[in-house]
């Protein structure tokens, strides 16, 4: 069956590799993927561990449904204590790595220690080998993959690797696979880099038995139809996540010029439809029919003629909206560079925009920038800063440290212009008019994060009846729900519900675009319950899956609490409360978050979780979820 995949414990210091099965008890409590990763991380680290030291562990995992006939089961999850925030670090990427890892016989890798010299892992049908990485150290993401494939003589090898940024311990370095599949947030690339682990190469030809193949095929077909017939999927399949730009910028929900404005009026040159001319087709992750990555060739500039994939919605934010650029080439080039260096697009965009505002305000001068003109809208400076940050040159060395450390180094008033939560930069969306989204980023377990609990469909102005259908399953909810996204009523439940939803989908290893994230008609708990049964034979009701999600979410919380997280960390920067929005449609103009109402939302959110006022788990919650004995010895 699909559940016979193993955990491998790899100690890079001693070179010892050990494999263990995953017991059914663990499966039923944590499923796999992010859920089991949370458990393994909590149990394999001690409080206060140095994120870049040998005692931190790096977890690589595939969800329980990865490689099976549930659509888009492509997600690889990577976890560890974050070098960026110092809290729970976790990132999730698509591509083909996770399924290949399962075909090679493994669900989870627990990597600890630090190799003496650069190494990479070679995993093939149950065997794990630690190999010398001298030929690939210092190489970009693409070259690394080609060299490994060439060396092994197999085109089908899938490689997860860090780029030059990861080697240089840029605190928001990515792990990457293929051209642009990125494990972006929380600096997992730096974690791998600190272990001298350049890459993990996998190739597997072992069967994953599908428990009920006929039913699984038919049901998958049904799910695919359900997803691809949705308008949002069709649009995504044409442009990728760029399509979100039209709606958000039209309303004024975009953070531009760091955090000074909330709409970009001179955006004709960077609109998705403009980009469409440079794209020549779409591609996607394993088993996915939405295909949300565009294939393009950079039309102009220094990198003219280079092939790359993307860009994402985030890329527009990072290389256009935030630094105030208006040229498509900058977005495409920037996207290409961060992909090859292996860096978080979102974080780097925010850092550069922040530096630009500091330059505008005179906090940074030409002396600090080595003569580089960091004015808003200077496209060349944006590209130059990407190079400098990846190589940690000059100002780049400071910006590579992430929001809080960089602000500390620059000093003066610089922290005032940072837009972050728990030391992680915010997405370039402006959450001041949307309290639900603001609550999501403020409370997300890995710092400011729009993918942990964002009720994105809140922006669709859906009728209350539709919202109720969605948000009262599988747990009954009778409180208020409202269509108006500027409202505070009932939003904390939506955030709570979405948090459970995304956690479950991460445990399963399915892509978020195949769940209620951008489309209200997409599969959720009920469908997953069937998918689990048909593919793996595991019988879990929707409510049981919900409970698993609650348990694992709380485990992440427990990790953060152990690292010293307090209620005050679940909060936004002052600008959200004090500086009203200046542009946009009437609904959005002149909006701020109301401090009192926001505090009340957080109280509600804690209450739904069963947490006390300080955000700590109540004893009865611990007991209910079976977490009272953690750290445990299920291992």
């Amino acid at each position: 069956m699909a559940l016979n995949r193993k955990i491998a414990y790899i100690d890079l210091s001693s070179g010892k590799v050990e494999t263990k099965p995953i017991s059914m008890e663990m499966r039923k409590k944590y499923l796999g993927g992010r859920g089991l990763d949370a458990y393994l991380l909590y149990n394999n680290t001690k409080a206060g561990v140095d994120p870049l030291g040998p005692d931190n562990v790096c977890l690589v995992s595939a969800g329980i449904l990865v490689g099976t006939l549930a659509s888009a089961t492509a997600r690889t999850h990577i976890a560890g204590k974050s070098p960026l925030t110092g809290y729970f670090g976790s990132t999730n990427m698509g591509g083909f790595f996770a399924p290949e890892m399962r075909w090679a016989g493994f669900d989870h890798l627990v990597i600890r220690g630090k190799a003496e010299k650069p190494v990479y892992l070679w995993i093939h049908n149950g065997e794990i080998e630690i190999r010398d990485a001298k030929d690939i150290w210092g190489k970009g993401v693409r070259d690394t993959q080609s060299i490994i494939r060439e060396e092994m003589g197999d085109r089908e090898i899938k490689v997860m690797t860090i780029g030059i940024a990861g080697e240089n311990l840029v605190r928001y370095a990515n792990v990457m696979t293929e051209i642009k599949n990125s494990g972006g947030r929380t600096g997992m690339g730096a974690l791998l880099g600190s272990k001298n682990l350049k890459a993990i190469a996998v190739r597997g030809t072992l069967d994953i038995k599908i428990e009920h193949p006929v039913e699984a095929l038919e049901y998958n077909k049904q799910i695919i139809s359900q997803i691809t017939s949705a308008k949002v999927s069709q649009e995504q399949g044409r442009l990728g996540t760029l399509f979100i730009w039209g709606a958000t910028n039209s309303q004024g929900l975009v953070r531009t010029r760091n955090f000074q404005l909330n709409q970009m009026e001179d955006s004709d040159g960077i609109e998705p439809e403009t980009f469409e001319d440079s794209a020549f087709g779409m591609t996607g992750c394993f088993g996915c029919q939405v295909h949300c990555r565009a294939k393009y060739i950079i039309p102009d500039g220094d990198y003219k003629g280079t092939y790359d994939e993307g860009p994402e919605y985030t890329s527009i934010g990072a290389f256009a909206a935030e630094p105030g650029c208006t040229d498509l080439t900058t977005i495409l080039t920037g996207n290409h560079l961060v992909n090859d260096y292996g860096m978080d697009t979102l974080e780097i965009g925010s850092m550069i925009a922040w530096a630009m505002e500091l330059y505008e305000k005179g906090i940074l001068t030409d002396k600090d920038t080595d003569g580089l003109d960091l004015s808003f809208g200077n496209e060349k400076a944006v590209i130059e800063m990407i190079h400098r940050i990846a190589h940690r040159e000059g100002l780049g060395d400071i910006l590579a440290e992430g929001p809080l450390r960089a602000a500390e180094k620059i000093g003066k008033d610089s922290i005032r212009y940072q837009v972050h939560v728990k030391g992680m930069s915010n997405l370039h969306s402006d959450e001041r008019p949307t309290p639900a989204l603001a609550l999501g980023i403020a409370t997300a377990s890995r710092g400011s994060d729009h993918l942990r609990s964002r009720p994105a469909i809140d922006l669709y102005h859906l009728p209350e009846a539709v919202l109720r259908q969605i948000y009262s399953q599988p747990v009954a909810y009778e409180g208020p729900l409202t269509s108006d996204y500027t409202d505070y009523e009932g939003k904390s439940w939506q955030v709570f519900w979405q948090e459970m939803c995304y956690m479950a989908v991460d445990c399963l290893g399915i892509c978020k675009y195949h769940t209620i994230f951008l489309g209200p008609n997409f599969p959720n708990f009920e469908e997953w319950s069937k998918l689990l049964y048909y593919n793996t034979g595991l019988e879990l009701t929707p409510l049981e899956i919900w409970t698993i999600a609650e348990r694992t979410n709380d485990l992440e919380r427990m990790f953060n609490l152990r690292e010293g997280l307090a209620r005050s960390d679940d909060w936004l920067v002052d600008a959200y409360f004090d500086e009203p929005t200046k542009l946009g449609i009437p609904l959005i103009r002149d909006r701020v978050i109301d401090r009192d109402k926001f505090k009340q939302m957080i109280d509600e959110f804690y209450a739904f979780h069963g947490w006390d006022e300080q955000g700590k788990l109540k004893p009865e919650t611990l007991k209910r979820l079976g977490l009272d004995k953690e750290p445990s010895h299920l291992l």
Partner: protein
Amino acid sequence: MVWRRGRLILSEESRQETTSERTARGRTHGAFRCLNCFERIVPPEKAESYKCPKCGFEWRVSWPSPTIPRIRGPVWETNRRLTDEIMAKEKGQGK
């Protein structure tokens, strides 16, 4: 939905609708929502821009497929002017 253990829930009569399927029934084609007033509006085929008949805000339109219009962006002048008017009016009333 009642989850039935181990039963094949594939043939039409034995299948029960899930939440997402129920939600999907409200799906529409050829229309988009005005981003100002959230009215569902139907632009003429292949229109490049369209003014919301309810609130007067005007949107540039793109067509992912022949039956799906989406908002590409605002017609800046129109919308800015309308917003300014509305905001001025609100201020006048409020203060």
